[in-house]
C-alpha cells in the first residue's frame, strides 16, 4: 500500500509506543571476562581498591593490633590512600584475639566481594578461624604477627590450620619452640620443663611446639596446664609447677598473668630456689615491652624472652620515627616492622597482579594474587629478605633469646641482652 498516511499513523503509533516502552529498557553493562579460577575483583574506573585489616583492637593484645593497624594506615596515608590510580579503602575489623573473633571478623570482611586482601590477623587464634573463611572466599591474608606453626607448616608439612591464601611475614613459632627447647637443654641443661598456657591457640601452639622440641631433645615435659587469665591467685598453677618439679617453665602467655605468676613465685620455696635451684621462666616475644618490665620489676629478673632479634637497620629506624611523628609515640612492640613488610608485600603483589582495563578499571584475579605472593622470593623488607614458601611462610626465621637482668634498663636494655641467637 502506497498510502503514506498509513505511515504517518504508524509513526505516531510507534512513537507513542516507544515513549510508553522507553521506561522498560534496562542498561546492560558488559563486564570484562575473568578467567581466574577463584574469580576476580573487578574495580571500576576510579573505583576503590578495598583492603581489610583484621587486627586486635580491644583486649589485652590490643596494643599489638592497634600498632599494626597504625602502620598499615601509615603506609596508605603515605600514598594518600591511592594506589594504581585508584583510591584505597581500608576496612579494619577487630578480631578480638580469639578464634571466634577472627571468624566473625573474617565473615564480616568476606561478605563484601570487592575486598581484595586482608592484612592480619594480630593473633594466631583469630587467624585459626579466619584463615579458612578467608581461603574459602578466595582471598589472601598476610599476617605480621601470627606465629602459630599450624597456620602454615610444621616440620615441612602443612599445618593443621593451613589454608591456601594465608601468608605471614613473621617467623613460624615452630622455630621459636625449637629455639627455646634447644636453649633450655643445650644452654641451661634443663631436664624437666613445664608449659603454661592461657588456653589461647597461640599459647597452646607455642607450648606444644616447645614441648615437642624439648622432648625430642631428650628433655622431660612434666607439666602442661592452662592458667586462668583473669585470675588473681596463681598459686594452684605454681603449686602444680612445684609438684611437677619442673626446672624450666615455658609460658607463652599474656603479660598480666605472666606478671602475676612471677610475682607469686616467691610464695613457693621450691620454685623460688629456697631449697635448691630456682625454676627458670621463659616467656614469648609478646612480652618484650616496657610496660611488662615495669610491671614485673625485680620479680622478673632472670626471665628469658624468645623473639626475633632487634632490627638494627636504618629503614626500621626511619619507620619507627615516622610512626612516632604520626602518632606521637614510638611503636611499643616489634610487630610494626612486620606489619610494614606485610603491607608493602601485599601492595606489590596487587600491583603485579592487577590488570588494567581499557576504561581505567582494574581486574585482580584472586588466584593470580595468591600465586604472586607464593612466588615472592626477593622482597627486601625491613625485617629481612622475604621469601614465601608453599605454605605461606614468608618471614625470616631469625630468632634470639634475651634475658631480663636489669629491669631498670627497660625494654631497650632487655633487647640488647641477647643470650642466644638462632639463625637457620
Amino acid at each position, binding site marked *: 500500500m502506497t498510502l*503514506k498516511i498509513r505511515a504517518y499513523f504508524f509513526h505516531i503509533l510507534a512513537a507513542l509506543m516507544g515513549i510508553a516502552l522507553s521506561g522498560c529498557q534496562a542498561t546492560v553493562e558488559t563486564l570484562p571476562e575473568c578467567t581466574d579460577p577463584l574469580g576476580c575483583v573487578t574495580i571500576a574506573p576510579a573505583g576503590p581498591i578495598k583492603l581489610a585489616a583484621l587486627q586486635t583492637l580491644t583486649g589485652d593484645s590490643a596494643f599489638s593490633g592497634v600498632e599494626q593497624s597504625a602502620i598499615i594506615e601509615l603506609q596508605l596515608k603515605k600514598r594518600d590512600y591511592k594506589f594504581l590510580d585508584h583510591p584505597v579503602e581500608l576496612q579494619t575489623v577487630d578480631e578480638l584475639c580469639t578464634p571466634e573473633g577472627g571468624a566473625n571478623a573474617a565473615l564480616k570482611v568476606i561478605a*563484601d566481594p570487592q575486598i581484595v586482601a586482608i592484612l592480619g590477623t594480630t593473633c594466631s587464634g583469630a587467624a585459626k578461624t579466619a584463615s579458612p573463611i578467608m581461603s574459602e572466599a578466595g582471598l589472601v591474608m598476610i599476617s605480621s604477627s601470627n606465629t602459630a606453626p599450624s597456620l602454615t607448616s610444621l616440620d615441612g608439612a602443612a599445618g593443621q590450620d593451613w589454608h591456601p591464601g594465608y601468608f605471614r611475614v613473621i617467623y613460624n613459632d615452630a622455630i621459636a619452640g625449637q629455639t627455646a627447647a634447644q636453649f633450655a637443654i643445650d644452654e641451661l641443661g634443663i631436664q624437666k620443663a613445664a608449659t603454661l598456657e592461657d*588456653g589461647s591457640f597461640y599459647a597452646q601452639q607455642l607450648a606444644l611446639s616447645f614441648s615437642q622440641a624439648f622432648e625430642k631433645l631428650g628433655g622431660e615435659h612434666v607439666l602442661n596446664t592452662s592458667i586462668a587469665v583473669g585470675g588473681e591467685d596463681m598459686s594452684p598453677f605454681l603449686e602444680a609447677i612445684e609438684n611437677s618439679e619442673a626446672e624450666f617453665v615455658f609460658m607463652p602467655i599474656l603479660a598480666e598473668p605472666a606478671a602475676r605468676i612471677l610475682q607469686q613465685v616467691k610464695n613457693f620455696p621450691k620454685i623460688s630456689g629456697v631449697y635448691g635451684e630456682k625454676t627458670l621462666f621463659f616467656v614469648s616475644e609478646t612480652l618484650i615491652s616496657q610496660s611488662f618490665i615495669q610491671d614485673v620489676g625485680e620479680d622478673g629478673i632472670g626471665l628469658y624472652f624468645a623473639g626475633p632479634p632487634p632490627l638494627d637497620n636504618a629503614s626500621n629506624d626511619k619507620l619507627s620515627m615516622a610512626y612516632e611523628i604520626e602518632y606521637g609515640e614510638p611503636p611499643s612492640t616489634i610487630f610494626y616492622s612486620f606489619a610494614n613488610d606485610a603491607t608493602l608485600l601485599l601492595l606489590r603483589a596487587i600491583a603485579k597482579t592487577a590488570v588494567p582495563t581499557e576504561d581505567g578499571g582494574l581486574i585482580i584475579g584472586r588466584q593470580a594474587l595468591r600465586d604472586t605472593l607464593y612466588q615472592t622470593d626477593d622482597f627486601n623488607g625491613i625485617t629481612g629478605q622475604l621469601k614465601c614458601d608453599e605454605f605461606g611462610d614468608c618471614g625470616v626465621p631469625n630468632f634470639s633469646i634475651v634475658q631480663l637482668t636489669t629491669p631498670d634498663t627497660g625494654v631497650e636494655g632487655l633487647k640488647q641482652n641477647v643470650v642466644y641467637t638462632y639463625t637457620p
Partner: protein
Amino acid sequence: MGNWRKKHLNFWPKVDTPVDLNAMKLRKQPIWKSTSSLMTQWVLKGANKGAFKWENLNITAKFNVAFGGLLALLLLVSGTSYLFLSIVYRQTEVAIFTSTEIQRRILEMDTKLQTARVHERDFFLRYPVVGFTEAQQNYASKAVSHIAEVIKLSKELEQLIQSSNVSDTLQKQNLDLARYFLFSERYKNTFLDAVEIATQLAGEDDGLWGHLDAIANQLSQRLSANSNVELMTLYHKMRTFEKDYQITHEVTSLQLTLNVAFDLHQGIDNKTGWSLETKNEIHSLLSKYENIFRDIEDLDQEIQQRFRDFELQAKQVDPVSAELIRLSREEVERTQLQILQTKRWANTSLGTTVIIGLLLASIIARILNISITRRVITLNQAVEELEGGNLDIRTKIVNRSQHPDELGRLSQSFNKMADQLQANFRAIEATNDQLEYRVHERTVELSDALKKLQSTQTQLVQTEKMSSLGQMVAGVAHEINNPVSFIHGNISPAYEYIGELTELLNLYQIYYPNPNPIIQEYIEEIDLEFVQQDLLQLLDSMKEGSNRIREIVKSLRVFSRVDEAEFKNVDLHTGLDSTLMLLRNRLKHANKDLGIEVVKQYGDIPLINCYPGQLNQVFMNIISNAIDALETCNPQLFVTHNGAKNDQIKIYTQVFESDWVLIKISDNGPGLSDDVKEKLFDPFFTTKPVGKGTGLGLSVSYQIIVERHRGKLWCDSYVGEGTTFNIQIPITQMDKTR
C-alpha cells in the same frame, strides 16, 4: 514562486476561496484548533507529495482512511491505556508484594533467629536438668531447624532484593544480607559444634562427665574399700573442686582438682599395706580421672568459645537485622511513594495520550470536515441558493484533477447543470426582457399617446373653454363696458346736476321757507333732507360701483386676453393684480379680520415675453387653489409683525439668473402630502369634492408653463407648513412659434 507554489502549496487543489476563508478563520481560532488545522494541512500536504494524493481518493477511501485512522487511534489509546494501566498495576503489585515480602521475610528471619537463640540457650541450660536426649529433641533440633530456615530466608531475601526493583539503600544492604547469611550459617555450624561438644561432654551414654563420674565412683569404691580416711578425704576434696569446676568452669578449680589428684597420687604412693597392683589400679583410675577432666576442660574451653562466638554473632547480626527491619519499613514507605509517583506518571501518560488522541481525532475530523462535510454543506447551500433562484451560484470545485472523488464529480455536475440552467434562464430572461421592453415601449407609446390625447383634449377643452369664456367674458365685458361707461360717464354730470338741483332746493328752501303744504308734505314724506344726503352718497356708491365695474371689466379683459394669442411682452404684475382683482371677492370675508391677506413682494422684473392670458390662467389656478386650501382647512396661524393671526397668500417675484423670472405663490395652508405632491400635476387629479374641481387646473398650468413657455413649475409643500408654487419662466422666448 509559481512553480514552487505549485509544488509545495498546491496540496489543497484549487480551493482558493475556502482555503483563504479557513486561513482567516484560523487566526481567530483557539491555538489547539489552529494547530489541528496546521497538522491537518501537514497531513494533507505530506500526503500530496508522493504518489498518493488525498484529493484523488474517493469518499469511500477517505472514510476508510479516516475511520481507519480513528480506529487506529482508538486502538492506540486503548492499547496505551491498557499498557499504562498494566504497567501501573504490575508495578504496584510487584512493588507492594516485593516490599511487603521483604519486610515479612526480614521479620520472619529475625523472629526465627531469636527463636533459635532461645532454643539454643534453653538447650544448654536445660540439658543438665531434663537430660541430654530430651534437650536435644526439644531444643537443639528446633534451634537447628530455625537456623536452617533463617539461612534459607536470608539467601532468598538476598536474591529477592537483587532481583527486585528496591531502593539503592536496600540494594546496598545486600552486603549486610551477605553477612547475615554468612553469620547465620556460622551460627548453625557453631551451634552444631557446640551441640557436638556438649554431646561429648554430657552425652547420656558416653559423655565425658558421665565417664568422669564413673571413674570417680570407681576410685571412690577402691579407696573406700581400703578404708583409708585420709585418701577418702582427699578424694572428696578433689570431687569438691570438681563440682566447683562444674559450676564455675574456672581453670583454677580444674587446677585445684588436679593438684588434689596429685596429692592423692602421692598419698597412694605413700600408703602402706596396699599391694602394688592395688596402687597401680588406683593410680590408673586417678590418671584416667585426670585425663578425662583435662579433656572436659578442653571441651569446656571449646564450648565456651562457641558461646562467645554466639555472642559475637549476635553482635554482628542484630544490628544488621535491626537495620534491615528499618530499611524494609522505609522500603514499604518508599514503595507507597513509588506507587503514588507511578500513578501520577500513569495519569500523566494517559492524559498525554488522550490529548494526542484528541488532537489526532480533531485532525481526522478536520480532514473529513474539509474534504467531505464542508464540501457537502457548500454543495447543499449551492443547491438551496440555486433553488432559491440564484443562478450565479457555483460550488467550489476542490478537485480539478483527473480523478476527482464523488463530491468533486457531483460539484462538477452541479456546476455544469447550473451553467446550463443559467444559460437557459438567461435566454428566457432575454426573451422576456425583450417582450417586456416591447410591451413597455407600447405602453409608453400608448401612455404618451393617451397623455397627449388627454393633454390635447384638455387643452382643447380648456382652450375652447377659455376661448369661449374669454370671448364670453370679453363680450360681457364689452357689453358691460358700454353701459358702465354710460353710467360712469354720466355720474359726473349727475353729480354736477344733483349738486345744482340740491343747490336749487337749498335756494328754494332759503327763499321759500314755507312751501306749499303739498310740497311741504311731500318734502316731509320723502324726507328731502335725507334724500339730499343719501343721493350724494348714492352717487358716490354709484361712482364707486361703476369704477369697480370698470375695473372688473378691465380685469376681465386683461385676464381673458382672448385677443392676445401670440407672445407679447407684458407686465406679470398686471396679470397678477388682475387675477387678484377677479378673486377679490373670494379673498374678502364678512369678518374683515378673517379674510385672506395677500402679501405682494413684487420684485423689479422686466416685461416678460409670454402668452399673458395663459399665464393669467396659471395665476388664477394657483391662487384659486391657495384660497381653496385656506378655505377648506382650518385657518393656519400666522404670526404677523403686529401679533395678528391671519390666512395669508404671498406673491413674490424676482429676476432669477438674469434670464429668468421666478414667481412664488405661497399659502400658509395645510400643505400637501407626498402622495398628493406626486400626483399634483396629473390630469384629472383633484383633492376637492366631486363637482367642485375638474382636476385639470394644475395639469393645464404645468402644460402652459413647461410646454408653452419652456419654463418650470414645481411645488414645495410640507404638511403643516403651507405650500409654495414656483413658476420659473424665461424672460424672453427664443422660439415664439409654439
